[in-house]
């Protein structure tokens, strides 16, 4: 009985402590006194994640390859060809070449848009425990990365930098339910907001501010850009509209879009350290195809 009462007391103290920490962090926001703690954790574990990244990478690649197999059965024709290439690639160490190609495409995109990017690798990902969608990348303030910078890869927009420590930084993905990106339909002037809806980044929600504007399947979305290009630079491809919700009587129209960047299997990403001098408009969009 005495032991149980003591345990309950300890639990009470701990829960109160947790609530106090939570409240302090919530109320103080950016000037939080817990910032040093977070920075220390970021430094310590960021370094650990960076060091073991090389060991873990082949395992992740392997498991991802296995899990992607059943879904690709539909594209069996294309897959046969690709499979042979991949198998050869595994043997001859072509995986590195693939990564180099990804990097080159990233630089290509950056070149078309006139962005200045710092390339980095994803070293860790959050999803569990927690409800956020965030990744850790292996570039930090030493490489010129600052909080509130745009992150993209060779296909399109990925997210924005939330915290940056000296050698690693945390990126909140487009698919995080708390993220909102100003967006524009291609060619038109219609603007809207892209929200994450979780779902591991398979879809994002696009809310068009004008309910009378035409919105159809296959429409492509680019980022609208923020003041001084922070946190989002203009003209980065976001995604293709997959289905349009009918929302009669509402002030905005809602559509769901598939992001260009594959947010479930991110590897090489780039942080835009310098926004373009002028908005590239739709110049960066990939060539239009049937479904992708």
């Amino acid at each position, binding site marked *: 009985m005495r032991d149980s009462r003591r345990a309950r007391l*300890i*639990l009470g103290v701990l829960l109160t402590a947790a609530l*106090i920490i939570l409240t302090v962090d919530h109320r103080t926001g950016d000037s939080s006194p817990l910032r040093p703690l*977070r920075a220390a954790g970021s430094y310590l574990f960021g370094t650990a994640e960076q060091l073991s990244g090389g060991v873990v990478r082949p*395992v992740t690649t392997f498991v991802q390859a296995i*899990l992607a197999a059943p879904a690709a059965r539909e594209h069996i024709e294309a897959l046969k060809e690709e499979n042979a290439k991949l198998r050869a690639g595994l043997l001859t160490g072509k995986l590195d070449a693939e990564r180099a190609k990804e990097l080159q495409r990233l630089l290509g995109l950056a070149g078309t848009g006139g962005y200045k990017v710092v390339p980095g690798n994803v070293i860790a990902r*959050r*999803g*569990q425990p927690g409800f956020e969608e965030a990744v850790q990348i292996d570039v930090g303030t030493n490489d010129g990365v600052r909080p509130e910078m745009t992150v993209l890869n060779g296909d399109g927009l990925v997210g924005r930098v939330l915290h940056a420590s000296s050698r690693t930084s945390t990126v909140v993905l487009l698919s995080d*339910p708390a993220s909102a990106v100003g967006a524009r339909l291609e060619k038109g002037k219609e603007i809207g907001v892209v929200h994450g809806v979780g779902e591991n980044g398979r879809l994002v929600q696009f809310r068009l501010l004008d309910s009378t504007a035409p919105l159809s399947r296959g429409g492509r979305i680019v980022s609208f850009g923020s003041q001084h290009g922070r946190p989002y630079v203009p003209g980065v491809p976001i995604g293709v509209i997959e289905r349009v919700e009918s929302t009669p009587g509402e002030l905005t129209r809602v559509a769901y879009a598939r992001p260009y960047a594959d947010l479930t299997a991110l590897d090489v990403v780039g942080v835009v350290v310098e926004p373009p001098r002028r908005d590239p408009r739709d110049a960066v969009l990939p060539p239009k195809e049937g479904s992708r």
Partner: protein
Amino acid sequence: MIGGVSVVLALLAQVMLVNRVPLPAGGAPDLVLLAVVGAALGRGAAPGAVLGFFAGLLVDVMPPSAHLVGQYAFVLALVGYVAGRGAGGPVTTVVLCVLMAPLLAAAVGGLISDPRVTMSTLTEQVPVTVVYTLVVSPILVWLTAWGRQARFST
């Protein structure tokens, strides 16, 4: 000591390996929760709560994190307490803890009006996580409770 190490290892494995693999239905097992439950099982309520609290703090500061510090400290302290105290046999304790943790986390998130916690989180994301975690639970709890079976087999 062994409990602490296993929690850190589980956390590293979680963010570096498990979360990066796109599993079907878009979820992942929560290894950290299982490590806390496994380490707290049969240790008693007070050590369980303390272990859970510090594991939670670690979860909150481990990069990448975009939520507030203290959220998981609260959740895992309570989970550690329940796991240490025990509710019926070890099996019912583990199941109870696995069910309790995501709901508690969602409740704390709702309390500070986290935009990530909505009805669809509860109906779509939480069940997937619970199922994955329950599937993995026998292996991980057995691993973390290594060498202490004799103590909680009663």
